[in-house]
């Protein structure tokens, strides 16, 4: 149970990295890059900070948010295509830097933090990130807020430089982040946590489907994209708004 709560929090944090509401038609593929950055910074800071989790999280969040602000400033006038290529390139380059770790002499290699974050720490971080993303909705800091969430996810799972990430795993992780955001609702900061919760609830079904679950995930996401472009949270919001409108009309 504790593990699944931790995984829900992590999925939601990764899903928040896709959250870039100010510009229509844009999708951020930099989430995995921010995750690797946050994890690496946490690993670097771990030694001097004597493994104090709060320090690691603050360092990871600050570095990822700063990188997010720099990238966002550089891509301010970019169209959707350029934005997608540049954000994907950032993730691939971060993965390449992480792989380059094997060339560093073992005495200089970055060790992973000795302690993993607990469930309540992850839950607290998620609540904070949702609040920050909600506050940043529509502002020029929304991309940096999403980057911060992904950086914190990296720090929590300790995605240290010691674990190189192949491109298949990278794109799989990106697909996972985008799926969480799309199914939950990518226009709201509450959508990705909602999507992560649904994904966790659907987990027993994958055990029933066995190997076919691997085959079914992709088509299910496509169906969700076609029928629920604003996600389940968007649908719930529309339904609630419609109910309020009908009620107001009835009262009038």
């Amino acid at each position, binding site marked *: 149970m504790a593990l699944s709560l931790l995984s829900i929090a992590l999925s939601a944090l990764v899903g928040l990295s896709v959250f870039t509401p100010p510009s*229509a*038609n*844009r*999708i951020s*593929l930099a989430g995995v890059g921010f995750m690797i950055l946050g994890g690496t910074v946490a690993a670097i800071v771990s030694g001097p900070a004597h493994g104090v989790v709060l320090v690691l999280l603050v360092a990871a969040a600050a570095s990822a948010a700063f990188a997010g602000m720099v990238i966002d400033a*550089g*891509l*301010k*006038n*970019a*169209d*959707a*295509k*350029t934005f*997608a*290529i*540049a954000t*994907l*390139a*950032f993730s*691939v*380059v971060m*993965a*390449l*830097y992480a*792989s*380059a770790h*094997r*060339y560093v002499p073992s005495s200089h290699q970055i060790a992973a933090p000795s302690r993993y974050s607990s469930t309540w720490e992850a839950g607290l971080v998620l609540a904070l990130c949702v609040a920050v993303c909600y506050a940043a909705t529509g502002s020029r800091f929304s991309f940096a807020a999403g980057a911060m969430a992904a950086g914190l996810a990296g720090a929590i799972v300790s995605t240290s430089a010691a674990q190189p990430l*192949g*491109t*298949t795993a*990278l*794109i*799989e992780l*990106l*697909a996972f982040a*985008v*799926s969480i955001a*799309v199914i939950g609702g*990518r226009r709201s900061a509450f959508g990705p946590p909602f999507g992560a919760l649904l994904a966790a609830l659907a987990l027993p079904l994958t055990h029933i489907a066995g*190997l*076919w679950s*691997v*085959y*079914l*995930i*992709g*088509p299910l*996401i*496509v169906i969700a*994209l*076609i029928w629920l*472009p604003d996600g389940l949270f968007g649908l719930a919001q529309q339904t609630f708004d419609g109910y309020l409108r009908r009620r107001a009309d009835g009262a009038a």
Partner: protein
Amino acid sequence: MDAKVVAGALFDGSVIALVAAATTVCLDLFGFLNLMLVGAFILGAAEEYAFAAAAAPHWERLAAGALAAAIAGFLFDRFALHPLRKRGTTDLAVAAGLAAFLVVLGYLAIFRLDVSVSLPRSVLSQRIANIGGFTFSELQALAVALCVLACVALHIAVYRTRFGLGVRAAIENPAAAQFMGVRADRVPPSAMAAICAVAGIGGAIFAMQSGLFAIDIPATILISALAACMLAPTGSVSIAVVFSFALALVDRAIVARDPALSAFATPTLMLIVIAAGVLLRTRSAPGAHQKAPT
């Protein structure tokens, strides 16, 4: 420069160029970054391995890789992109590309094409030719020839025929295209099939060289293809191909000089190239000097 480095760069450049050409044409025609192309590359490589395990001839392996990628591309456009096209949102199309990538991984898992196998790859890569002191393997020559052929064929099909015009019409205005006699549910999927086939050929050629199979597109190939697409004007296959070969040559030269340095220098170089591409694109974009509406 060492002739061996140049020969290696020609091979890498061919694979990068095939991915870059497919990506840039997709960006131009369909207007989004299609990550299904990575799936097409992997599918091409997996089919090549499956056919190599059955001791099929080389042309059959290549054809199988291209055909599997083309079928995947057709189905992706017909069942995922076609319904999404009416909404006109590119972010959903990118998400659909990622979902299609997961479908490809699922297909490989179900048909056990993702198992790690090691096959002898001796026939083509060991045959050596020597022209004027320039030594290269038969596989390197085949890669360059196939790259040029596939890219020229894609360019002609998309930019020099009525088919290409039909694709544009069907994507931009499906109703008007229907009046012109262009079937909006058949023509764009065929174009996507051709684009994915080019990426699949890249995967098949790459798989022919490597001994151990891994479901992966090397990160250096992907980032180089993205960098070439970013520098070249969207849809310009020839410029993307030239940049692909240039980037492969630079990468090989750095690796030959110091492999440890290349692990850091290559990503940094690609990052700089992509940043330059972003700068060029945002400067040349219409209305770039006007203040963005808030």
